[in-house]
């Protein structure tokens, strides 16, 4: 009986394993123009992968924005623009129609500062990569949950 249960569980594990393919969801930084309706097209005419409506975020930042920088790390989007006060993390919902977002203040000690000369890149290993955020000649690492650190920790 034990042998049957063991064999069965091995078969179940194997069958599950065959239903998984390797898939990495990340991107290089995109500079995306903001449309009049506060939307940005992710990709370009040839490689179109979605639209983000940023009305709420732009309202919160309350600065004129022509372009935003956006990077994807493990399926989550991180975006920012010149003179923003936050990096914004957007996590797509399962319905594929909406996303939860949260503001990340990378300089919590200085609530009034604005980020200039900004840049995103990914840093780390394949299994554990952070978003490196460069601003005001400084850099910080944001992990996949949105926590900020001076190093890329797990």
């Amino acid at each position, binding site marked *: 009986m034990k042998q049957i249960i063991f064999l069965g569980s091995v078969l179940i594990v194997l069958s599950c394993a065959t239903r998984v393919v390797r898939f*990495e969801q*990340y991107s*290089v*930084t995109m500079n995306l123009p903001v449309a009049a309706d506060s939307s940005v097209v992710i990709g370009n005419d040839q490689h179109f992968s979605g639209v983000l409506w940023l009305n709420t975020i732009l309202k919160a930042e309350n600065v004129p924005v022509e372009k935003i920088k956006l990077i994807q790390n493990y399926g989550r989007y991180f975006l920012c623009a010149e003179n923003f006060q936050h990096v914004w993390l957007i996590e797509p919902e399962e319905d594929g129609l909406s996303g939860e977002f949260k503001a990340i203040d990378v300089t919590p000690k200085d609530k009034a500062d604005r980020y200039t000369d900004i*840049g*995103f*890149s*990914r*840093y*780390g*290993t*394949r299994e554990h*990569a952070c978003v*490196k955020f*460069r601003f005001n000649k400084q850099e910080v690492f944001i992990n996949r949950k949105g926590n900020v650190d001076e190093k*890329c920790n797990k």
Partner: protein
Amino acid sequence: MKNVISKWLLVVSIIWASAVLAQDIQETYDAAKAALLRGDYQVALVKISDARAHIAADPQLDPNGVFQNRLLPNLENDANTMASIITALEELYSSTEIELVFPDLKPNVEAVHLYTQQARSASEQLISRRDSILASVELAPEYRDALRNTVAFKQIERLASVEIVEKLSEKFTDIALVLTDSIAEINSQYQTLAANLEKLKKASASSQAERKKLEEKLAALSQERANYMNAISEMLIGDNSTEKDQMRIVLMDQNLSDIFGTAITTEIKRVNALGGAIDSSAYRDIIQNYERMKRYNEIFMKNNVAGDQSALLAQYEAAIKNIKVVQPTTGTPIRYFILAVIGLILIFVIYKIVTSQKTKRPTVAGSDPSAPHAT
């Protein structure tokens, strides 16, 4: 002094090294791409190499190897393609420049045509070979556009549009001298001939044939002069470039303005002297001549080699308007009469033949189907 320089170099290299090391792979990659979009493939290749060095020093800069394995090789491939195109364009430029030699021809109208044809053909061939080089390799459209900003591309553009003309201008400067001399000589001959014709018309004893002969000679001189002016305008045609300056100086020194003015004046006199009506073919020639003179005036004015002759051209136009054009007659009354007589004779002959055959025909029994048959 040496110490100061070496210290200064050390400081500069430290600042440069720190700036380079502080760059992200993404930024280095973007800089390489931007350089390639400017057509600067060398900077692009240096940046690609920098990015690779950074990744080698710290693999965490490229967590998934997307830059190392995908983006940088693609960009490097485009940069190398652009490099090969630019090398081919540079070779094309050098070879064309060496091969393009205008032979020494006798300075005349024919030489202008031959030189112009050779220049046009060389320019067209150059552009065609350039385009075939561009079409022979695959390159993303944005980088293909960037090629237009490269020195090699611009050099070829300049060679095709300016340098060939520049080379030709040296030849044309010599020819311009000969052509203007020739026009002045024709003007002089023309005036003498026109005066002779005038005298002949006044002399009651002059024959019609003699006058016609002189008029034909004048028309031939007019045509020859037009050919010379056409050659000059052909040399001046195109962009109002500085390469033609030497030729312009020659034309001005030779007083092309006066030569051209005299040419129009004599043409006006010729048209006025025609007096009576002329046929449509001669009229068409006069109109063509007038249109050409108008065009030469525009070209000479544009190149500042002669003053505006619009006033004379207006007189020329007015003289042409006074000409009466008659339709050439296709036959005379005598010819019609002869034709009518021949026609009547023909009809009479046919009538005679037909009637004589009827009287000679034997009557055979049964040959007439309408005749009654014996049974």
